């Protein structure tokens, strides 16, 4: 039977091409993602081991703490220790480092490559015996020699638009510094080359900034030939003060750093994997459909095989073998395509913020096995039902005319099962409307409900096809006879039409659902951010460990046009339930800059020992206004009883709790610092001049960002970008696969209807008419899929959106009508495009096809 299968595949190759393409796409995504993952991991490892190639052992101070604490504790790493380390047997060279971070202002005044705090590196230029630092080879200029000079790496210089001799403003963790660029170096540190910045100071300056005079943040040792990293590490540990410093081998560090960047890249794999799953899922319908039609078209042949003695099992096996062959071809093609995807993926995923390392493609056994398993597995699974149909063909059918029109689907059982599933899915989703929050349990219910709903839609589609397409026939009927014929043809085999429309249905449902939820959430976030914020400008630090110079508050208040400037210190509040963010505010100006919606109590009583909490915290802790809350603030040592003076509706500007600024500042990790300045202008005016003056007031520090109300609101919704990316990706993918599916089905049905089309040509329908008929049939099927998908997607979004109701007070269903309209137009266009080739083929048929004797 293998030979029969092979012959069949070859005979039907044109029809199978489309099917192969669908599977091929899915396999390509799977394989591409895996190869990309392997490749990027290998590239990261290569880069990381290059970073640590010369380092056998690194000595670091033990238990480093943030801020001021580090400076006292790092005393173990001083020049005396460096000398002792150099004397350790087997140590070839010793290089002390002073590392920290620094944010630069680019030539145009905007902070350079900020966003990933750990990627803005700063270090000391440590000249060796030859007066050069081997770690940072100079490209141009000279090394920084005093506190007024600095050097950067070539990537940073290019991104910032710096040239030798330029004056650069920068900040490490405090006030703004101004230095002159004297040198440009190269570096192989992957954190920098992957989109970070590197700033080099002379040793004394770096020590003053990041350690203490004469102290280092780490010491690297290289091993003499014949000494292993482990041996050296042991000897080094022996000379270290045990509780104040420790030794780590270079290999361990390389692994650690590689792991660090791996985590980052792992995030990139999610999207292609979702695409792979979706394309394979939708693709399986395409396969099942193709095989159903192939088996139906081969009824006589199968009956003949049965008549001459083939068993049912042999027939089934023949069909399944065909599927295996098809799956193999598709997997092979997908594998190649996947390698292509893996090759271009780094470029696609690289943003201006960071570039992914390039390296030769690493093709491990994992992607190969996965591609084969997925491709063949899905194909065979999808062909299983049609193969059962093939087995049901009775030998007697060899003698019957194959031209009989297919009988109507016996849809009662299907309808009952589908309806039951629909009720179950809808019931599950509807049960969420009463949900208070997005707990794991509720999310699981939502996922399960959506899954059941999708299956129900797939099962019910053939049953729904007849009434829905009949309804759409009213529209196509306007196109006269061609429209009527198209509509009847779409109805001829509702099961096939439904299966064809399934791909479009699923992708439309997904995209519509995501679009609605995304839009609703975005608007809710906007409203939430906008409603809680009374300020027109917010000045804030980029990282939580740094602060704004407290003296700047008065300077900001003095800026012409500023009515109120209110400083906020952000800290943490430990309650019995967990860690909360507390905002230390000035009670008399807070009303002007925050719009607090008080549930209970009054903010006037805010003061030391008296705090306000958000409704969520109040509910969680079971307190109300004038109640008491046992909590610990910031770096304070002991829990104490705080009096709750007010409860307010959750507000992103106010965070979880509000306290008196003087009190919050006292217990802060960086005592006396402030993190935000909320500014109210006269008449709510925002202008470039005010913004510039505000920037000047905070000393043009790159650590401080100045945002208008709109920018802040926009930023709050920015997290939805990934969702949108996913949505448009799915849309594109769904469209492509639906296109393949509809084209496939139409091509097959044109082939089956050769005689009919010949008759139409013979009795006077011109080629344009035939084309229009096929096109309208395609659009009818596409419209059916779209309609069903839209309904499912909107329903899903409506019910799942209920989860957000608890989490977001201002959530309301807001369908993005424009996007949805675009989606509908796109789907209909898919129908038109999919019909192009089959319509042309049909139109090319000669009227003589009507009299062809079979």
């Amino acid at each position, binding site marked *: 039977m293998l030979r029969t299968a092979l012959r069949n595949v070859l005979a039907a190759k044109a029809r199978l091409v489309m099917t192969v393409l669908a599977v091929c796409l899915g396999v390509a995504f799977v394989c591409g993602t895996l190869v990309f993952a392997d490749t990027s991991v290998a590239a990261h490892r290569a880069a990381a081991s290059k970073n640590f190639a010369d380092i056998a052992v690194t000595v670091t101070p033990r238990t480093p703490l943030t801020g001021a604490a580090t400076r006292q504790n790092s005393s173990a790493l001083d020049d005396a220790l460096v000398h002792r380390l150099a004397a350790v047997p087997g140590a070839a060279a010793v290089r002390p480092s002073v590392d920290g971070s620094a944010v630069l202002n680019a030539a145009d005044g905007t902070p350079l490559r900020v966003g990933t705090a750990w990627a803005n590196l700063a270090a000391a230029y440590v000249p060796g015996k030859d007066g050069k630092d081997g770690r940072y080879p100079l490209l141009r200029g000279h090394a920084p020699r005093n506190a007024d000079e600095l050097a950067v790496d070539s990537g940073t210089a290019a991104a910032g638009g710096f040239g030798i001799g330029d004056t650069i403003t920068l900040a490490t963790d405090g006030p703004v510094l101004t230095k002159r660029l004297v040198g440009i170096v190269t570096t192989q540190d992957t954190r920098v080359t992957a989109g970070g910045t590197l700033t080099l100071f002379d040793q004394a300056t770096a020590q003053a900034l990041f350690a203490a005079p004469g102290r280092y943040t780490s010491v690297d040792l290289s091993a003499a030939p014949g000494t292993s990293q482990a041996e050296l590490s042991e000897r080094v540990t022996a000379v270290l003060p045990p509780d104040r410093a420790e030794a780590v081998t270079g290999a361990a560090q390389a692994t650690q750093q590689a792991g660090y960047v791996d985590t980052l890249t792992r995030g990139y794999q999610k999207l292609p994997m979702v695409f792979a799953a979706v394309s394979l899922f939708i693709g399986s319908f395409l396969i099942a459909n193709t095989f159903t039609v192939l088996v139906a078209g081969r009824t006589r042949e199968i009956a003949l095989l049965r008549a001459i003695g083939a068993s049912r099992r042999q027939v089934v096996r023949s069909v399944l073998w065909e599927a295996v062959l098809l799956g193999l071809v598709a997997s092979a093609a997908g594998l190649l395509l996947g390698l292509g995807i893996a090759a271009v993926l780094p470029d696609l995923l690289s943003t201006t913020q960071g570039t992914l390392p390039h390296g030769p493609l690493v093709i491990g056994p994992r992607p190969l096995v996965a591609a084969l398993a997925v491709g063949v597995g899905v194909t065979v699974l999808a062909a299983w039902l049609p193969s059962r149909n093939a087995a049901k063909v009775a030998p007697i059918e060899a003698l019957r005319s194959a031209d009989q029109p297919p009988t109507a689907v016996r849809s009662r059982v299907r309808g009952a099962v589908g309806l039951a599933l629909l009720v179950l899915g809808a019931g599950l989703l509807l049960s969420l409307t009463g949900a208070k929050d997005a707990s794991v349990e509720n999310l699981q219910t939502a996922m399960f409900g959506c899954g059941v709903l999708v299956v129900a839609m797939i099962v019910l589609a053939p049953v729904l096809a007849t009434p829905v397409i009949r309804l759409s026939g009213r529209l196509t009927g306007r196109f*006269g006879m061609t429209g009527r014929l198209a509509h009847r043809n779409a109805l001829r085999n509702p099961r096939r039409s439904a299966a064809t429309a399934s791909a479009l249905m699923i992708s439309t449902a997904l995209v519509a659902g995501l679009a609605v939820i995304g839009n609703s959430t975005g608007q809710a976030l906007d409203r939430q951010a906008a409603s809680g914020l009374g300020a027109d400008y917010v000045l804030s630090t980029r990282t939580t460990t740094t602060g704004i110079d407290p003296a700047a508050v008065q300077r900001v208040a003095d800026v012409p046009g500023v009515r109120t400037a209110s400083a906020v210190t952000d800290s943490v509040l430990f309650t019995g339930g967990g860690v909360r963010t507390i905002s230390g505010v000035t009670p008399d100006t807070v009303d002007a800059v925050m719009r607090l919606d008080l549930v209970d109590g009054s903010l006037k009583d805010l003061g030391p020992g008296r705090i306000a909490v958000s409704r969520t915290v109040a509910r969680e802790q079971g307190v109300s206004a004038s109640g008491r809350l046992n909590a610990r603030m910031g770096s304070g040592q002991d829990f104490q009883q705080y009096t709750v003076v007010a409860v307010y509706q959750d507000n992103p500007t106010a965070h979880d709790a509000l306290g008196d600024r003087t009190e919050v500042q006292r217990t802060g990790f960086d005592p006396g610092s402030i993190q935000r300045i909320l500014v109210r202008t006269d008449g709510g005016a925002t202008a470039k001049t005010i913004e510039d003056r505000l920037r000047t007031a905070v000393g043009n520090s790159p650590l401080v960002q100045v945002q208008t109300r709109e920018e802040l609101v926009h930023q709050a919704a920015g997290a939805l970008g990934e969702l949108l990316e996913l949505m448009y990706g799915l849309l594109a993918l769904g469209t492509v696969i639906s296109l393949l599916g509809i084209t496939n089905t139409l091509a097959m049905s044109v082939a089956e209807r050769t005689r009919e089309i010949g008759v139409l040509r013979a009795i006077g329908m011109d080629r344009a008419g035939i084309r229009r008929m096929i096109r309208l049939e395609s659009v009818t099927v596409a419209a059916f899929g779209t309609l069903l998908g839209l309904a499912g997607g909107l329903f899903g979004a409506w019910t799942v959106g209920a989860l957000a109701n608890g989490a977001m007070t201002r959530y309301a269903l807001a369908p993005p009508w424009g996007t949805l309209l675009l989606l509908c137009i796109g789907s209909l266009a898919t129908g038109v495009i999919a019909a192009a080739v089959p319509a042309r083929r049909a139109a090319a048929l000669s009227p003589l096809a009507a009299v062809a004797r079979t």
Partner: protein
Amino acid sequence: MTAEPFSPYLPHPATGVAAATTGLSKVYGSGDTRVVALDEVDIAFREGEFTSIMGPSGCGKSTLMHCAAGLDRASSGSVRIGTTELGTLNDRQLTELRRDRIGFVFQAFNLLPTLTALENITLPLAIAGRRPDRQWLDHVISLVGLGRRLGHRPAELSGGQQQRVAVARALVSRPAIVFADEPTGNLDSRAGTEILGFLRECVRELGQTVVMVTHDPVAADFADRVVFLSDGRLVDEMTRPTADRVLERMKEFDTRTRTG
């Protein structure tokens, strides 16, 4: 049938020629595989006449009909429907000609399975975007006697009924000429005779020109004239044929094939 005279539908004076071929040849393939299906055929089909084309299998009778009906292009020679020379028409014009001036009846009925009997009958008009002439439509329907079954799909009709629908479809646009390709080939003898009766009726009562390809001598009995084709050539002609005479003539072909 009613005996009423169909005054508006009286035939034109039966002198004109509805369709004619001159030097019509059709050649398939080339070189070694070259097959001459029609060899310089000259034939005219007069208005209001029922012509039957006969001949042994492979004699080219179907090809002649396909070329004359504008379904297929001639290799050389000319085909005229009325005064229109088919060779000069492009595909769209040829399609329109088939739609407006030619009717077809096929051996395999070739009704569209998705349309009802009535929709099938009016299909040529619907394609042309014309409203059916109610009176004429009723007349045609009553002629083929389908009154009660108009709402049925082809699958719900017997072979004879399907072919009656096909005949009605061929007549509905009042074509200049109706071509019938083995119209009784898929029917039992009773249903076949019925269809032949209808075609005969069309010619007599409506003055319709009908050309029929058949190999059934009984079918030829209904025609005004029988032309015999052999090896792509017109070899004989018989007016006012009877089944016996036609059978006699056909036997000659058999003998000739056997002896030759």
